[in-house]
């Protein structure tokens, strides 16, 4: 079974297709991490870099870190958690925090019957439970992307409910087109990619940013 791409690598790849990602630095040691902190705008997030599938499930993600002391403490706790789960620590990914917004999932797969396909959904880590997901076969156009977004049951969350502002839906449309459009990742890289998972993408009135990215490559094309 093929391993996912490293998160930073996955983010560089999708950024090349115009999807916004948080400013980030990778570090192998605490010292490198402290150095990275200087070039980023606090608060930051620290994430475990490893082959583990679900970082947050093993305590590998620490949010809202403001300075050197906080960073040292966060890294120590990530190391501890990794040790408890028997996970090898390959390094740390340090990223700027993204302002609050509505969290959605966006992604792509290569289906054995229909080929490249794109999905959008709600629910963060509970996506499977809530099952509010809409798929389309690639390539999609802008009308398809709008239709996908409106088709989600929780779509009103994006258009503003209970005093919350409407988010920049066009920015989410742009993410879906970057994934599933005629010149998107899925159409151009289907020979390499098995699955792409951007979860969450944080959509706010100021745009859409992929906060986490996982790309699984096809086995035989490594």
């Amino acid at each position, binding site marked *: *079974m*093929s391993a*996912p791409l490293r998160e930073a690598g996955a983010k560089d790849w999708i950024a090349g297709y115009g999807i916004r990602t948080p400013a980030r630095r990778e570090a192998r040691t605490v010292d490198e991490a402290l150095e990275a902190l200087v070039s980023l705008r606090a608060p930051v997030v620290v994430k475990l870099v490893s082959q583990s*599938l679900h970082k947050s499930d093993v305590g590998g993600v620490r949010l809202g870190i403001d300075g050197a002391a906080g960073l040292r403490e966060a890294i120590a706790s990530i190391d501890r958690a990794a040790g408890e789960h028997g996970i090898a620590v390959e390094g740390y990914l340090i990223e700027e925090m993204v302002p609050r917004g509505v969290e959605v*999932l966006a*992604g*792509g*797969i290569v*289906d*054995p*019957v*229909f*080929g490249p*396909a794109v*999905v959008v*959904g709600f629910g963060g*880590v509970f*996506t*499977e439970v809530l*099952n509010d*997901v*809409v*798929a*389309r*076969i690639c390539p*999609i156009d802008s*009308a*398809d992307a709008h*239709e996908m977004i409106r*088709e989600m049951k929780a779509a009103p969350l994006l258009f503003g409910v209970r005093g919350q502002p409407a988010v920049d839906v066009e920015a989410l449309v742009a993410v879906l087109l970057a994934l599933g459009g005629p010149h998107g990742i899925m159409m151009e890289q289907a020979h390499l990619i*098995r*699955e*792409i*998972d951007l*979860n969450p993408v944080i959509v706010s009135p100021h745009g859409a940013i992929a906060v986490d990215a*996982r790309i*699984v490559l096809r086995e035989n094309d490594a």
Partner: protein
Amino acid sequence: MTPDDADLRRDFRPLFEPRAIAIVGASNTGRTRANDVLDFTRAMGFSGPIYPIHPSAATIHGLPAYRSLADCPGEIDYAFVAIAAARVPDLLAQASGRVRYAQIMASGFGETAEGERLNQRLLEVARSQRMRLIGPNCLGTYSPRGRITYIRDCPTEAGSVAFVSQSGGISTDMLRRGVQRGLRYSGVVSVGNCADLGPSDFLEYFLADPDTHVIGFYLESLPDGRRFFETLRSASARKPVVILKGGRTPQGQRAALSHTGALAGDDRLWTALSRQTGAAITSSVDELIDALIGFQCLRARFDRPGDGVFVVGNGGGASVLATDLMSRLGMQVRAPRDDARKALEALELPAGTSIDNPMDTPSGALRMHDGHVARALLSAIARAERPDAILFHVNMPQFLTNPSIPDAVFENLVDGMLEARRSDGDMTPLALTLRSDGSEPIDARKRPARDRALAAGVPVFDEIANALVALAHFQRYERFRHRRLAAERKASTDPPIRRQGGT
């Protein structure tokens, strides 16, 4: 027809209008599927030569038999092959390029390693002779235009519905039950395992065939899903397509490594295909038949796509349930406009009639003028309201089991509806539900009334729910095609984008 369409029609003519056919597997000692096809096809009036192929018999059913396909005195457009799998490749290898289409009944190609080898051999034999294959593991082809059939007593009149099935049994259901319900086919093909020709090939052909107005499918596994999707997408829904998909799994069947992988299952992508191509997805044979009946009878209006139905008939509870279902189906339930309200009030229907949508007209109202009131009632709705569609429902036992109601009222209701439709010039899509209690006498009255309505082009359904689901498919299709046409018009009238800069 485009030039490509003309090519497709010419390529498939030997299958759907064969000049000569061969039947392999018929015998004088037993009765096989091949014997059936020989008899049924002759009974249907096939006028060209039929060549039975048999290793020893001089004649089969009175026709001269031949030892091999190459021994036949003429070219063979269509060969029906009902012998054991192991013998099929050798039989076809002896055809010397004289067979255009061969339909293979036998199973046993592909399920085992030996079957895989047979399948490979079969394909090589066919390709070396430019012969096209249907099947294996299928039942036959019905083409009224070509007078060939594999089911007894199929109509000889050609219709406008095409049906392609990966299950032989369901193709039989659609021919028997579908024809009883009023479907008339341009062609039915049982495609089996699709070793060579498959759903995408027949989709292309039936899109091109001018006699076909709507295309139905029963699908289990698509050998070339991408081509099927792209053919549908580029057709821009120029003909309605209705799919019954067997084996829809809620989640992806493969091991997924991410949320996305786990969520984008087969089922969701069939929904996606429907949204992106306008094809209707159904979930039962009955829903498939209902949808096809609707498309066969109703004329889609792309300039004025619909999203609601005006429901009228006898039954208060039935009206309430109709409202509930319309709302679940995403249909609009519009109250009558003032003009329509006045026109309906002017009919002076008895107390108990609700002038609303749905409009409950108790049997006391519908028996006015011995049932001829249906003409004035439906004309008033069509003219003054101009709804997207009208559904007229008749609870038959209320008219046929009440001794105080004259016997002719029921038939007059149906005739009144047909007169209203004629006087409206078929401007408003109109559907009829004839609700029987399933008893012999009521069903006996239902059949001729249903046939009369169908012959006039009115789709007839057994229950209100079936009619509404079929109308929902019909209106979804109208709206999809309307949007596609608008997008295409916009694309052709927008000025081309000028590149910035340059010389």
